[in-house]
């Protein structure tokens, strides 16, 4: 009967694991909902900010700014900052690998770079692959918050303002919907002028008095706006992470279910065999004793 015992043990261990994966699934789904809601709360503010910058850009009140450029001016020269957003944990399908793959190809495109990594997984990967990254840049990927986004933006903006960086890329995972997510890279700085063009409804901007000047107003708005972008990128990545984890856990649940089914059948089969054998033995021995 040792065999049935082994199977019973296996069934128990699969049940226990299934409980864990199921719990992880539920946790991820609540986290996902929460993160999306907090992102929605911030949209009006940052959209408005973009409009304000848009008015200034539309009316060409500012002709030159270190934050803005037209597509033709883009050059890959100088040192580029690359911000990578990974998760703190694995167990989320190919989520982390996709981001890392994308980053590695970007690093080749920009040989002179500084790498900023959010999330333990990415840090671990890059340090074990001897890829240098900025170790002063320490931000975990727990739950994205505006506070964190502000710290990250402050760190990067400071290096950009001082001219150390000539541009900044972000590699993150874009959350389109629950089925389609994709690791993408986006240029954060300098902004393309067209990003702000034509979104403002207002056309009467020239009647506004700018204190102290349009340039100053714009240069104040853009760093704040970039906090919004970094925040949305953090939330988008976070949503994908949770979503990928949900899918991974869901398929783990399904695998566990089919394994359990198979093992239960096996277990019952063996048990029934044992019982049948016992009955045969007993009846055989009864017959034998009658013959005497």
């Amino acid at each position, binding site marked *: 009967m040792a065999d049935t015992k082994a199977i019973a043990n296996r069934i128990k261990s699969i049940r226990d694991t299934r409980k864990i994966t199921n719990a992880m699934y539920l946790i991820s789904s609540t986290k996902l909902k929460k993160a999306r809601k907090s992102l929605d709360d911030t949209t009006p503010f940052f959209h408005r900010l973009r409009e304000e910058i848009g008015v200034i850009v539309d009316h060409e009140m500012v002709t030159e700014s270190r934050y803005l450029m037209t597509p033709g001016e883009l050059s890959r020269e100088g040192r580029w900052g690359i911000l990578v957003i990974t998760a703190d944990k694995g167990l989320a399908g190919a989520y982390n690998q996709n981001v890392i793959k994308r980053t590695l190809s970007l690093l080749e495109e920009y040989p002179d770079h500084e790498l900023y990594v959010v999330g333990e997984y990415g840090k671990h990967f890059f340090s074990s692959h001897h890829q240098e990254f900025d170790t002063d840049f320490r931000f975990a990927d727990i739950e994205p918050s505006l506070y964190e986004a502000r710290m990250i933006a402050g760190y990067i903006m400071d290096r950009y303002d001082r001219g150390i960086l000539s541009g900044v890329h972000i590699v993150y995972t874009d959350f389109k919907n629950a089925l389609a997510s994709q690791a993408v890279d986006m240029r954060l700085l300098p902004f393309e002028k067209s990003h702000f063009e034509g979104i403002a409804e207002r056309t009467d901007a020239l009647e506004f*008095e700018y204190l102290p000047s349009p340039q100053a107003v714009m240069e104040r708005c853009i760093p704040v706006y970039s906090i919004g972008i970094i925040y949305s990128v953090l939330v988008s990545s976070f949503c994908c992470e949770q979503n990928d984890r949900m899918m991974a856990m869901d398929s783990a649940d399904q695998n566990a279910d089919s394994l359990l089914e198979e093992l239960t059948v096996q277990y019952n089969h063996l048990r029934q065999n044992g019982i049948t054998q016992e009955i045969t033995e007993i009846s055989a021995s009864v017959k034998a004793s009658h013959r005497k």
Partner: protein
Amino acid sequence: MKEFRLQFLCADEKEYDGPCVSVNFPLEDGYMGILADHANMIAIMETGVLFINTGEKTIEYAVTEGLVEVKDKEVLIMAFSAEKPDEIDENRAKEAAMRARMRLKRKMSNLEFRQNQAALSRAMARLKVIKGRH
């Protein structure tokens, strides 16, 4: 006093939307007040204390940097964050101010200097708002 509509937006919520008699906010070089029928303008608001007079009472907020816009006699204030007096922990604000001051005395990098300076002005704004409460 004549009233006008005021909207006050923070990064993660709408703080206020309603009638208002006057608004006072910090600029780089002092305070600026807005009454009804102000001309169109956009101004940079600095970290400090914002006063909103609704006619019945004056609400104070400790705000961080943002924008103030007057358009068609309506006022829009956008601040990255805002705190009312009852949301502020006095001891924490005091501690933060002290920490920032201590750190400012040390030698440090450009970034740290600016971060500490910003932290100090935020803490001072909070403390100012609290003073009005007692």
